[in-house]
């Protein structure tokens, strides 16, 4: 028998009426990597993750992570009335006899890590990741192909061919820079503006289009609005519309990966607006307390639809929240593909090795409208948008780098533009021609098995269409 009697299970409670208080339990070493004692200063190539607690709060700058979160050290000390040190279980800190409020520092916030300047020149050569030519070209081609696809699908919505679309203009660097730093099997939870991650993982144009058109090739079976991509093979969890719901889910997935010893990281993308949701707070807190190998990647693009960051938060962005949860945090230039790459690479290495979360806030700018349902000229100036489009664009900056390396030139640029446009147009025309899935697929996958009552409803629709089918667009649907 594999299960003992219930009596055995309940032994502790039968002996006494009280449960053991935490103070009585011997400190046990947490199931986690022994590498957690790594000092604050240790970092690869100069980039530094901000280690909690914040310098203005902590008694000792450069303290390593609190060791055993289940049994904070305070509770293991011997209580002594002669000792004037604080004994509270809730905080590890010294007393102070001066009344002083901590001033949040938003004037001079967490610095922004970058590798290239706006002209694509490496600033500090020791930070250059020295990626091979093929990889950098792949980064460039992924970004530009995405850009081309965005233009064509945005147009197709304007022409009434698809119902809705969201572009990624200006944020392509955040997608490919981070995707390139991950393993192909690392699980991705996105929000809705991360198509470049899928693009980098070679998700075919045909499938992007199939989802937007909801045609029979759509693996999602036509159930969701456009841009709600998902791909099991490429470990990209299907997008859902509610914001930030993916954050605690990503944490759970990371926990399971840790238990499975999968050597896998989970990356979770979200915008600075979604970071205001309760689910974001929940995710951060769980990831830290449960020691999950997860990268939180915040795309801070300046707007949540029309809401600028000044109306979204008053603190120092999202990166400053990380240390509040006990999370290693960094802010990077999201339009600098190499900075994004370096930060993600290092975060991945440490998240898996040390089983702790990392927070990367990638500063960028949303050049396009929020979606095809938005006209951003209603709330921001054309000049502002033009600045980012012309002066600080991830694609241009990488192109300058490529040119300076001698890996790219005007001819190749022209040829690639033509080729990428042709590829997109071909996929587009194919997608247009395909029929939509059979209406029976309206009813499946609600549960793994179809319940009897739902089958009756399915039959009821079938009968209804027999009589009234002429009023429905059956011609466009698979028979």
């Amino acid at each position: 028998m594999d299960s003992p009697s219930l009596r055995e299970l309940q032994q502790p409670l039968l002996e006494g009426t009280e449960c053991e208080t935490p103070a009585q339990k011997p400190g046990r070493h947490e199931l986690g990597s022994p590498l957690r004692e790594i000092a604050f200063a240790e970092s690869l190539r100069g980039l530094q993750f901000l280690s909690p607690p914040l310098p203005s709060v902590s008694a000792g700058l450069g303290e390593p992570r609190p060791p055993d979160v289940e049994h904070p050290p305070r509770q293991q000390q011997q209580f002594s009335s002669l000792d004037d040190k604080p004994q509270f279980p809730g905080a590890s800190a010294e007393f102070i006899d001066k009344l002083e409020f901590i001033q949040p520092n938003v004037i001079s916030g967490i610095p922004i890590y970058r590798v290239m300047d706006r002209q694509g020149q490496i600033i500090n050569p020791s930070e250059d990741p020295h990626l091979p030519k093929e990889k950098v070209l792949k980064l460039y081609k992924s970004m530009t192909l995405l850009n081309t696809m965005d233009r064509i699908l945005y147009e197709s919505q304007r022409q009434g061919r698809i119902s809705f679309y969201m572009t990624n203009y200006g944020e392509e660097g955040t997608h490919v820079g981070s995707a390139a730093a991950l393993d192909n099997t690392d699980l991705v939870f996105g929000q809705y503006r991360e198509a470049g991650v899928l693009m980098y993982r070679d998700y075919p144009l045909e499938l992007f289009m199939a989802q937007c058109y909801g045609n029979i090739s759509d693996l999602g079976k036509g159930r969701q609005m456009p841009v709600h991509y998902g791909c099991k093979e490429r470990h990209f969890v299907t997008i859902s519309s509610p914001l930030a719901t993916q954050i605690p889910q990503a944490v759970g997935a990371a926990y399971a990966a840790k238990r499975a010893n999968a050597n896998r990281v989970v990356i979770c993308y979200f915008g600075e607006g979604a970071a205001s949701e309760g689910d974001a707070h929940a995710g951060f807190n769980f990831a830290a307390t449960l020691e999950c190998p997860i990268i939180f990647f915040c795309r801070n693009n300046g707007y949540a639809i029309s809401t600028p960051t000044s109306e979204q938060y008053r603190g120092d962005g999202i990166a400053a929240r990380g240390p509040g949860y006990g999370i290693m945090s960094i802010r990077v230039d999201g339009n600098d593909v190499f900075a994004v790459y370096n930060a993600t690479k290092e975060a991945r290495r440490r998240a898996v090795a040390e089983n702790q979360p990392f927070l990367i806030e990638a500063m960028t700018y949303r050049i396009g409208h929020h979606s095809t349902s938005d006209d951003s000229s209603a709330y921001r100036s054309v000049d502002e948008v033009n600045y980012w489009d012309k002066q600080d664009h991830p694609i241009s900056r990488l192109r300058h780098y490529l040119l300076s390396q001698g890996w790219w030139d005007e001819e190749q640029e022209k040829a690639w533009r033509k080729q990428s446009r042709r590829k997109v147009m071909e996929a587009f025309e194919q997608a247009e021609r395909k029929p939509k899935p059979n209406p029976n697929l309206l009813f499946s996958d609600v549960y793994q098995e179809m319940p009897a009552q739902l089958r009756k409803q399915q039959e009821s629709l079938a009968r209804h269409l027999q009589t009234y089918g002429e009023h429905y667009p059956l011609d466009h649907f698979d028979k």
Partner: protein
Amino acid sequence: MAVVAAAAGWLLRLRAAGAEGHWRRLPGAGLARGFLHPAATVEDAAQRRQVAHFTFQPDPEPREYGQTQKMNLFQSVTSALDNSLAKDPTAVIFGEDVAFGGVFRCTVGLRDKYGKDRVFNTPLCEQGIVGFGIGIAVTGATAIAEIQFADYIFPAFDQIVNEAAKYRYRSGDLFNCGSLTIRSPWGCVGHGALYHSQSPEAFFAHCPGIKVVIPRSPFQAKGLLLSCIEDKNPCIFFEPKILYRAAAEEVPIEPYNIPLSQAEVIQEGSDVTLVAWGTQVHVIREVASMAKEKLGVSCEVIDLRTIIPWDVDTICKSVIKTGRLLISHEAPLTGGFASEISSTVQKLCRIEDYPFYKRGKQTKKSKLLGQAQWLTPVIPALWEAEEECFLNLEAPISRVCGYDTPFPHIFEPFYIPDKWKCYDALRKMINY
């Protein structure tokens, strides 16, 4: 004197709550114990407190699942969780306070037995608990989440309704969180008031994609919980907290399954069908005895067990036979799940739908055809007649439920749909 008695009453409630409830959250928990010396007045206070509104009726000892042991409801839950973690190495249990054993002792001993990576506390955040559980399930591991009281499930409503329920459908079956089970204490407990007594099953009944299951007893609980955990769809398992200690019976030690979406006819009858779930099943059982004794009425008593997807056939078959239906639940009347049952039954209960059933008795043919199979020969002509359905009922369907108020504290004895209210409704139906 009154003050001491009142204070003694508080002490009793505190002790009771401390033993079986999350008394941190109850008001008055800060009262010093020293103030309240147990005295002779304590016994008076105990007698003056309301006795339970039901009598738990254990089922006969199950013989087909091997050795049994006397277990109460929380012990049967522990046993099910123990079996699950033993069988499935990916299974983990998490929630608030589950590590030390849980505020209702459902997880006692499991952390020591299976390790702190498998049975662990989470921060105090229901939306996080469910979201986290979904994420675990997405990777294929088994996630058993606990929400400390069903009253606190609402922060997780978005994750349950918008995410868990829709994961498979919206991804075209590329992804799912079928290995997620959410367990939560449910229903009235005598003194729980607004926030420790709720029965929120109706909110979730409106959500395709999840299953909602409510057991009436320890034996049922273990089998149903194991089925929920193994089911490939996200499930919510509500545990009637008043039964945690009050219900005890022989329960098999080994794992076993009770099928979901199957109601159970626990007593056959011919004159009226009584339907309930959870604690209320014991109330209507008693009502059935009262009806037999005082009115000579034969009641068919059905435990619905799964709220969604619910077993329409069993209920309809029964109502075709008896012609009368009474549904009872603690949750408020308006929009309560009885309204769904009532609406479906009055539409579907036509003799033509159940051709081999005759009023008053089960025919040989229907017995041969068995449970649900006879329903499938759906003749198109029958369905065309759907719009002209007519009532096959001898009396309007009766719903005996909580009032449309929040769940009150001191007025609980007046609020709950007790046996007298059910009996009265039944009497009116018989005399219709």
